[in-house]
């Protein structure tokens, strides 16, 4: 049994070595799994603290629900509008796509403003107690992700312009990458909302 036969290979298609499928999205998914593990570590820490570390007497840890609920709805809608933008881009309608992207980014910015509003009206600060520190670490780390995502949406929005933009139905990757990232950030928020506010 021969193991290597280069002669046979000469006949095989040379195309195979020159082209390969696009696996940038695969790489991004792997990265998002890694990113998700960071959040998993934070969640694990938070839940352990909640289970074993009693807070000092008089510590305030009751959270108001309205703002985070609005925030959840905002992010869920933004996921849908991003999806709409993608559909429009596939139909080669860049202007329509830009419109939906603008709505998505405005929703993202509104989320951040609501988050900051909540921060300023909370009865505890970063170093008050363990719960407060974990709360700010978790929401802050997520807010950092939303900030980055919003910036990337604005870049995509600029690049989707008809004359000179680099993103179009022919080059969907940047768009798909940001969309995947945005859905990931939304998904993390839903988990965060359940664990931090509802549990």
């Amino acid at each position, binding site marked *: 049994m021969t193991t290597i036969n280069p002669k046979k290979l000469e006949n095989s298609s040379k195309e195979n070595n*020159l082209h390969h499928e696009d696996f940038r999205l695969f790489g991004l998914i792997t*990265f998002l799994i890694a*990113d998700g593990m960071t959040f998993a570590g934070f969640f694990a820490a938070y839940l*352990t603290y909640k289970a074993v*570390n009693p807070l000092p007497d008089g510590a305030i840890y009751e959270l108001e629900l309205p703002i985070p609920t609005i925030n959840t709805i905002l992010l869920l809608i933004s996921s849908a509008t991003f999806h709409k933008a993608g559909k429009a881009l596939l139909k080669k309608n860049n202007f329509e796509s830009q419109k939906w992207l603008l709505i998505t980014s405005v929703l993202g910015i509104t989320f951040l403003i609501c988050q900051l509003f909540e921060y300023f009206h909370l009865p505890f600060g970063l*170093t008050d*107690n*363990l719960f407060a520190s974990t709360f700010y670490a978790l929401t802050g780390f997520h807010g950092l992700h939303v900030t980055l995502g919003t910036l990337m949406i604005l870049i995509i929005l600029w690049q989707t312009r008809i004359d000179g933009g680099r993103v179009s139905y022919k080059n969907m990757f940047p768009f798909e990458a940001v969309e995947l990232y945005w859905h990931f950030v939304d998904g993390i928020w839903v988990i965060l909302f359940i664990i931090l506010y509802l549990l």
Partner: protein
Amino acid sequence: MTILIDKKNQVAEKIQPKGFLRYFSFSLDHKVIGIQYLVCGFLFYLVGGTLASAIRIELTSPMSDFMPRDVYNQVLTLHGTIMIFLWIVPVVNGAFGNYLIPFYVGARDMAFPRLNAVAFWLIPPSGLMLITSYFIDGAAQAGWTAYPPLSITTPQSGQIVWILSVLLLGGSSIFGGINFIATILKLRRPGLKLMQLPMYCWAMLGTSILVVLSTPVLAGTLILLSFDIVANTGFFNPVLGGNVVVYQHLFWFYSHPAVYIMVLPAFGLVSEILPIHCRKALFGYRTMVFSIMGIVVLGLVVWAHHMFTSGTPPWMRLFFTIATAFIAVPTGIKFFNWVATMWGGKISINSAMLFSCGFIINFVFGGITGVALAQVPFDIHVHDTYFVVAHFHYIVYGGSVFVIFSSIYHWFPKVTGKLLDEKLGMLHFALTFIGFNLCFAPQHWLGLNGMPRRVAEYDPQFQFVNQISSLGALFMAISTIPFLINIFLSIKNGKKAGDNPWRALTPEWLTSSPPPVENWKGEAPLVTEPYGYGNDLKDNKEFL
């Protein structure tokens, strides 16, 4: 969607400098990046080795007379961090992975060449940052584990630099892991199946899964720790209501898999080297693959065996003891497979083979003490003593570092086209093997008799054994000299190796040595049986 990789590479080729200078450039060639990793890692190994020598000099006498106690703490912290994050992890993963994996999957480069270069160039600055922190306000003093509250209460600027540096190195390692997973799963040559890959690919796949799943947790933990130091939060500070055990859980969730991140690639490399120098097929390919994956799965659920003295509840002790004991099964399978590969083979005694045999001997010893340490009563007795130090060094030095040297002897002809001198190589092996065992075997005894680790002063009754240990360290330090002389002499005027000096069948040897820029002049060969030695040799005369 398709990408024309050839066009990209042609552009890259024009921009990049040629010759020796390309090792100092932001090169995208996986072979250049591999060598960059290796040489950079080796320089840090020399620094870490110097620090280890300083530790052993200090320990020749029971009092702390060679250096003050706080300097001793800084030295041992830097030694651990440099050896783990800047030498073993980058070299067994980054260096050999980058050099070999594209060959093994029949590709012309890694999946993401730019990400690859970024991953490498994160390492030198973070390493230099770590070392220079010593000259500013003193380096970190809390050991490579950086346990709070110690890491919060010791001088803080060094600790912050330590955290920043480890975060950067963690990022580098995640980028590398993503790249390896994509390369192995997605960039394989058409027609090459997963179960036909050389074993190192499987080892790197398993390692990269561990890197991607566990390194981010360490990053998150260190961010929280830095908040404790800088912003006065109380995550891990008991004074402020925090919980130190949570840090230990999160830290070991990374740092136990980190042991496998250091040793699994070494398993893979040994599985490549043994069949070639024994002229026999790798024994039990399938069981090897399954045991690697078994180690990956089990490796993620055993972390708390480092914490048996941290007030772990009984159910947790029971679970982690059993899970840890189970890891001995896949590891044992691999060990017996290596022995069976050598059994009845035509073994050629050369430096690469000697270092691999040294690895097998040391590793089985380190493995046995590992199983012993997994048992709660025994672990509580020897916790934080020199027994743990000895066990750990038998795994990472006797295991990984022996394999790194073995691989350097094995693949040096591939990289340079010249052979290393065998006599100097065997001298290097003899000094390393004797020195290593002289240094670390007595430490088992020290630990069993209660000498604590990480302390500059000790009970005078241990002085004699410590001096034997330091003598071994001296041998190890001297062993670097013939190795370096060998490398420099052989690069200048070594014997010409030819393209395939070991008559190997794995794909990297089926091209010229050193390989051309895009690995193969024509098509990449389809190697479906990388270990087809033995009876099949007659059919492959053209390659032998």
